[in-house]
């Protein structure tokens, strides 16, 4: 009797576990992708695939409608490709490559396409890709490096690159003369006067707004030549909040913890005249992160939350994703990867406005994911060849169509749906070109970014501005000292 009862209990538990797991599998939303990356809308996928297929007519991938089928066929094609390669040239050298985009089918189609094209273009090397979820990608690289097991081709987030180059993971790239002519500066990763990484796209941030809302409230629509000033921006926020139509006038995106904070908010600080690290010496943050300009920035930043103009650090990621599109936020500080859904929601009413000028010129962040070559690789030449091969404009355009990100050259921009002259996102390309400033290119950035994130969260939550910034400076400086200046002396 008792045994039976216990058996029943175990069976019931198992069944419930399965049900719960199944339910959770469907419901649970993963935490938002970190900001420098992008969840491409499914709708954007179909045209993108078409253009990829068109542009690489020599490829065997059959065009399939719908993202899933395309992904499947791409996988199949990849397998066939690998078999072909083995069959045709038994002695081709395998090159391993790690990529951060696991889970994004559309992105996978493009990157697989590049790899297939490269493998077909020569018979010396065969590139094999392994993809990782973005949230754990950097940890995987660090763990791989500690275990002496890095891939030949590494994909990396731009601002992290100097840290890895300094640590000796990366070999400088050997690019043919003229490869980077006309390239968006943010997509080039330089450290110690050498190029270590190059991206196929750049991300850009803009103020998402609706023309009708601004016009109704008599707010001037800013231009690249004449952006909002600090007072103008502040007054606009007060006006919008006072209408009572919005939960918040301005959504800076506090839900996106992590790299989004330094990427999206340090440009505000720079526009006030401060910075995360002193770019003259790269040895200290004293005076730039806690100087009078930085304190002024901190006080303005705190006032956004005190005055109830912006949702604070407890904003949940669902609100971040839908708040502007649902009309609950009047303005949103967001990246070009979110531009396509916004355009779909508001059409011609949708505006992408340049960053406000807080006194020291308007600034937005730059540098997204880029490719580089591992210093441990036994086949650096082959890995380098692959990176050079991938930098073709058609691939940059393909990524742009899929992910909504800015292509890296004018030539590539002309091939895209959204960034071509007259395209709806053309403005981002200009933003990247004119306002972009990369995050401080120093190995110290890795730790400084986390310190900066904490300081901004604390200030938003009402901590004393001067104390928070002082503490941040102390921690950044202690880290630089502990690393003997990270090679700057």
């Amino acid at each position, binding site marked *: 009797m008792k045994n039976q009862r216990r058996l029943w209990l175990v069976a019931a538990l198992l069944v419930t576990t399965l049900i*719960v*797991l199944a339910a959770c599998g469907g419901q649970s939303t993963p935490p938002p992708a970190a900001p420098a990356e992008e969840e491409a809308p499914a709708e954007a996928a179909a045209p993108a695939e078409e253009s990829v297929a068109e542009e690489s007519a020599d490829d065997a991938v059959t065009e399939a409608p719908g993202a899933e089928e395309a992904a499947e066929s791409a996988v199949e094609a990849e397998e066939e490709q690998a078999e072909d390669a083995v069959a045709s040239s038994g002695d081709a050298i395998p090159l391993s490559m790690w990529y951060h985009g696991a889970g994004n089918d559309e992105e996978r189609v493009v990157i697989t396409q590049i790899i297939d094209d490269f493998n077909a273009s020569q018979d010396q090397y065969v590139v094999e890709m392994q993809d990782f979820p973005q949230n754990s990608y950097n940890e995987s690289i*660090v763990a791989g490096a500690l275990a002496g097991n890095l891939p030949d081709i590494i994909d990396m987030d731009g601002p992290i690159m100097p840290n890895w180059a300094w640590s000796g993971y990366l070999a400088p790239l050997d690019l043919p003369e003229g490869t980077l002519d006309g390239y968006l500066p943010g997509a080039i990763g330089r450290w110690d006067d050498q190029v270590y990484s190059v991206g196929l796209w750049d991300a850009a941030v803009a103020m998402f707004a609706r023309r009708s809302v601004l016009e109704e409230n008599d707010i001037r629509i800013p231009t690249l030549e004449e952006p909002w000033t600090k007072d103008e921006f502040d007054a606009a926020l007060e006006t919008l909040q006072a209408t009572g139509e919005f939960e918040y006038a301005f959504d800076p995106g506090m839900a996106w913890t992590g790299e989004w904070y330094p990427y999206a908010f340090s440009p505000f600080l720079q526009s006030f005249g401060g910075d995360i690290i002193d770019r003259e010496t790269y040895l200290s943050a004293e005076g730039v992160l806690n100087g009078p300009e930085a304190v002024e920035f901190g006080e303005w930043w705190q006032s956004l939350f005190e005055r109830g103009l912006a949702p604070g650090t*407890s904003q949940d990621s669902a609100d971040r994703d839908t708040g502007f599109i649902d009309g609950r936020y009047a303005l949103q500080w967001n990246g070009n990867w979110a531009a396509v859904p916004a355009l779909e929601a508001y059409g011609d009413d949708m505006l992408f406005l340049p960053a406000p000028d807080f006194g020291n010129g308007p600034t937005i962040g730059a540098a997204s994911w880029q490719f580089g070559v591992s210093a441990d690789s036994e086949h650096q030449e082959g890995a380098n060849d692959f990176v050079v091969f991938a930098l073709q404009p058609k691939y940059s355009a393909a990524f742009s169509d899929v992910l909504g990100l800015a292509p890296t050259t004018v030539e590539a921009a002309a091939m895209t749906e959204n960034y071509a002259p007259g395209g709806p996102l053309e403005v981002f390309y200009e933003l990247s070109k004119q306002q972009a400033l990369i995050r401080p290119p120093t190995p110290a950035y*890795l730790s400084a970014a*986390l310190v900066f994130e904490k300081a901004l969260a604390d200030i938003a939550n009402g*901590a004393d501005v001067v104390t928070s910034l002082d*503490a941040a400076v102390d921690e950044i400086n202690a*880290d630089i000292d502990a690393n003997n200046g990270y090679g700057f002396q």
Partner: protein
Amino acid sequence: MTTTETTIQTQSEPLSRLNDRQSESLTGWLMASPAILLLLGFLIIPFFFAFIYSFTNQRLISPNPTEFVGLTNFKRLLTVRVLRLEPVTDEASGQPVLNDEGNYTYPRVREYTRNNPDYPQYDGLQEWTYFDIGQTRWMLLAGDAVFMKSLVNTFYFAIFIIPLQGGVGLVLALLINERTRGVNIFRTIYFMPVVVSMVVVSILWSFIYDGQNGLLNNMLEVVTFGHFNPVDWLGNPSTALPAIIVMSAWQGVGFHMIIWLAGLQTISYSLYEAADIDGANTWQKFLYVTWPGLRNTAIFVFVTITMQAFGLFTQIDVMTRGGPLDSTTTVIFQAVQQGFEKQNIAYGSAISVVFFIMVLSVALIQRYLTREKAV
């Protein structure tokens, strides 16, 4: 083995018994060896490394050589000093200057802790907290204020979750210990949160706690007919940690309910019958039969909850990342932040060593308090 035994047996009786014991202990070691190897590889050796690293400037990745730095890490971690501040006085009148709200104003701490040669003992320290006694403000400065807050939060979490999770678990176990129809359904329902990943639970609860349109706020508004003002549960320093305590207890209570239930079912029914004959009421039966019978179960439950509580990490990492204003940061969260994310393995190791000593002392105290008392 059998052959040796037989050969030995032909010799003398006492020797064979000795060898029997020897081979028995060898078998014992052999059987324990997988566990010992795993413990050695994943617990003891790493701890040994952590101990050594805590005296160096080891980085996770760095081209710089590792150097021994003595107690520097521990000094930064554990330094606490008191700074006495008197209100700012007006030079002409000698009266304290009041601010707009009528409170005393105090000099800024940064005047003492940043580049002030008169106060070398305060150099580089951070503001932790303060107490006002009369006009005087006693400021506590720490080498690492965030770590001090983490310590306080960790103990706060442990002190509240141990009775909450243990107590609710016991109540639930008593409820489902009844032999009535459908009780298994309740057992299953109460146990369900345990089998859901903590990450998933944390994400779901951060939607429940949403300050604008979260389920909890909506429910409270309905129940109070709109008199309740929405609270930003995770965004408010005074409610964030309690909110996480409640969620953690909800998630973990099913597991301990099952442990309590197992304990309850070992208590012989005849004891209750005897108590009935003696005319004991329900409360007396609980106090004099059930509770003494659960003694060992209770020790197990409280020790496991304590250990889990000190290791608080996942909820923090997913829901608040230590914020707002360090109100939810914990020791383990800091160890991971420093050691892994900021790549300062040496400092993270120092935090782990302090954590180890802390947990060890708590475990020893618990062991002492729950020892078998000689009558």
